[in-house]
């Protein structure tokens, strides 16, 4: 507790008051206080969501059920005329692509339908020019992706007015959700050069391809990966190739899309998942390199360094607001052994101290090359290792460890399609989907934080990581940079999310495996962050993930 804290007891309820208030609270909530009428919130939300839902309906699990086959295979799809005009096309299995194209054409929509073998994607992704249809009633539709088991895919071809009417009937409870289409397309919204591209591939039971968004614990009927997109101009034929261990999201094509990655990549991807938490007697080992921006005061500057006179502390936690403070990037090698109960054993070794100019470095050397404050030899637990490097070792009751293992169950339940994942995070499962909120909005920021949290869990599966990366990349206000280098010198792609006050969140991942390489904060605009001596784009605090695995003791490291 802070020593500045005044005594609050005169302002807190005494025992009798607390009991009286408890009674009043319990009475209030037990008698149908707030939240006793489920469905009210939904109804309130209805009109606002209706438009988006009519324009682009993608149910939480937009899925194509792949029929198990049999002697008398059912038709691949059915065309059902609707009351009041329009047709609804129900897709039951990924067969008869040309028949489906003809049915759509008769209803007034040009299309290319690509039903692909399991675990494959089109070689060139996308193989068409993406486009948007503007619908007469406002709103737009450019497509969506989905994966998972679920009800058949249904495409309604109807005017916007008809679609609105049917959604109104659904809201009034006159028709069931099953009678609403996954996708509603209005032929009048399409220009003559625009068409729809439908792509899908089954994920047969028990053979979910690694890295491809697919259901975890899919039912015996299997599931599918599917997308609906609007294209303009000519659409190239789709040439199926094995899917890379990478989502099909909007980041663009997987690098090396020309040649699909072979077995080596898939092995790497499964390596990247740390797998189950440690059993009793085991430890989860994680090695990271942390690079952090710190401040230090050159000897002889106007500001007196902190600490006792005989051992001045030149490094300071104060980065901004003092013109005397110079900056340096301090790297630390951090090894953490986490036991199943969440307690950790931490070993930190000081790495290089990098300066932004050779003049700064000279000043530091003239001051006797003082160590960063967290490695000050007068600090508890700081000593030198056999190579003379400053290091410290300590035990910690880390909440983080507990949380990691708590999350195992939660993570394995999350869907692995980018949109499904976002909707699940936003607690919209089973409701009408909406477009991603901009990252600068409150809702968008919460979603992005949660997606980043999923990404940084060491136990997240490659498929889930790919979905989280794609879901982030689809959010307005979040950018993707190709070919960046992380703090350990490895190449990857980065998700960059500019935040407030010149700071930005950056996550670097391996585009082939979706493996997380590094995660942290960078100074997008150093001046706005109050450290004008530092160049824009510099690190504020970044963690590069080097190695992890299960070991049997606190002295052990996993074998490579």
């Amino acid at each position, binding site marked *: 507790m802070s020593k500045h804290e005044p005594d609050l007891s005169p302002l807190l309820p005494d025992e009798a008051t607390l009991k009286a208030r408890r009674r009043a609270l319990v009475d209030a*909530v037990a008698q149908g206080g707030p939240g006793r009428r489920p469905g009210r919130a939904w109804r309130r939300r209805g009109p606002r969501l209706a438009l988006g839902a009519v324009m682009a309906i993608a149910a939480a699990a937009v899925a194509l059920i792949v029929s198990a086959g049999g002697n008398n295979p059912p038709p691949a799809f059915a065309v059902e005329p609707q009351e009041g005009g329009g047709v609804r096309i129900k897709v039951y299995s990924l067969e008869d692509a040309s028949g489906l194209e003809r049915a759509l054409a008769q209803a007034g929509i040009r299309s290319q339908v690509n039903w692909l073998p399991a675990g494959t994607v089109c070689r060139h992704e996308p193989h068409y020019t993406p486009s948007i249809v503007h619908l007469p009633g406002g709103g737009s539709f450019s497509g969506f992706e989905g994966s998972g088991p679920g009800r058949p895919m249904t495409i309604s071809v109807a005017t916007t007015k008809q679609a609105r009417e049917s959604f109104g009937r659904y809201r009034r409870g006159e028709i069931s959700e099953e009678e609403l289409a996954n996708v509603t397309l209005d032929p009048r919204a399409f220009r003559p050069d625009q068409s729809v591209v439908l792509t899908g591939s089954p994920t047969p039971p028990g053979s979910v391809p690694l890295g491809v968004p697919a259901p975890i614990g899919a039912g015996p009927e299997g599931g599918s990966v599917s997308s609906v997109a609007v294209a303009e101009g000519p659409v190239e034929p789709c040439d199926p190739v094995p899917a890379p261990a990478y989502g099909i999201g909007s980041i663009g094509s997987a690098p090396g899309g020309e040649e699909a990655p072979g077995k080596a990549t898939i092995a790497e991807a499964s390596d990247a998942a740390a797998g189950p938490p440690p059993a009793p007697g085991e430890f989860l080992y994680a090695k990271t390199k942390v690079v952090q921006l710190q401040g230090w005061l050159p000897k002889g500057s106007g500001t007196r360094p902190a600490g006792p006179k005989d051992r001045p502390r030149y490094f300071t936690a104060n980065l901004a607001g003092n013109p005397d403070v110079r900056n340096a990037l301090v790297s630390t090698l951090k090894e953490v052994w986490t036991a199943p109960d969440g307690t950790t054993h931490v070993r930190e070794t000081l790495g290089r101290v990098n300066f932004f100019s050779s003049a700064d470095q000279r000043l530091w050397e003239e001051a006797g090359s003082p160590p960063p404050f967290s490695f000050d030899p007068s600090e*508890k637990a700081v000593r030198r290792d056999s190579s003379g490097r400053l290091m410290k070792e300590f035990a910690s009751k880390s909440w983080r460890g507990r*949380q990691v293992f708590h999350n195992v169950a939660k993570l394995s339940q999350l869907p692995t399609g980018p949109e499904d994942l976002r909707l699940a995070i936003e607690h919209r499962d089973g409701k009408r989907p909406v477009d991603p909120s901009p990252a600068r909005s409150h809702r968008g920021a919460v979603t992005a934080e949660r997606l980043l949290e999923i990404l940084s869990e060491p136990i997240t599966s490659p498929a889930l990581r790919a979905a989280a990366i794609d879901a982030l990349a689809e959010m307005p206000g979040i950018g993707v940079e190709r070919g960046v280098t992380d703090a350990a010198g490895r190449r990857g792609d980065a998700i960059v999310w500019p935040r407030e006050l010149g700071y930005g969140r950056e996550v670097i991942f391996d585009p082939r495996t979706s493996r997380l390489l590094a995660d942290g904060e960078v100074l997008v605009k150093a001046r706005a962050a109050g450290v004008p001596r530092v160049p824009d784009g510099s690190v504020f605090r970044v963690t590069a993930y080097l190695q992890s695995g299960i070991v049997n003791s606190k002295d052990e490291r996993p074998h490579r």
Partner: protein
Amino acid sequence: MGVDLQLWERTRSGDAEAFGDLYERHARAVQSYCLWRTADLQAAEDATATVFLEAWRKRGRLTLTTDSAAPLLLGIANNVVRRHWHSERRHRDALERVRNAGQLPDELEAEAIARVDAIRQLRDGGEAIRALPRREREVLALLAWSDLSYGEIAAALGLPIGTVRSRLARARTRLGDAFPDLTEPRPAEEAL
């Protein structure tokens, strides 16, 4: 299973008495936090009642991710203080009842003076922190005026722990020497 986890599970299934137990366990901590944030007794009492009414309303959607319910309740408190939900009509009737249940008949003068004094100290003590940008203020306020660990602060605010750390680092940068006990990292918490 911890006591709070059990009480919260029962609350989720609609057990108002279990919720009452949670109120008794945490109402003072929530009110202390609201006092620090608002430096206003009336507002803090209303906010405290609102926190519990909101927790009850949202019980079906909220899961305890920590052994204690404090991070969850203080996370709601943070939102309540930020958005001034106490002025919303949603809980007006229930709020009246909870507040009146706590009315003391007649205040002794000494008590009144103690209150005024505490409020003045709150206003002075919290001024530097209330002047911080919102995101940093929330993190630092939880660190300073609740017993939550970094991890529990992360849970309360729905943030990754790394973000909590970096916001604290920035807040410390801004505060400088104003709060020396807050401007040094907690070494035991510096694990991965």
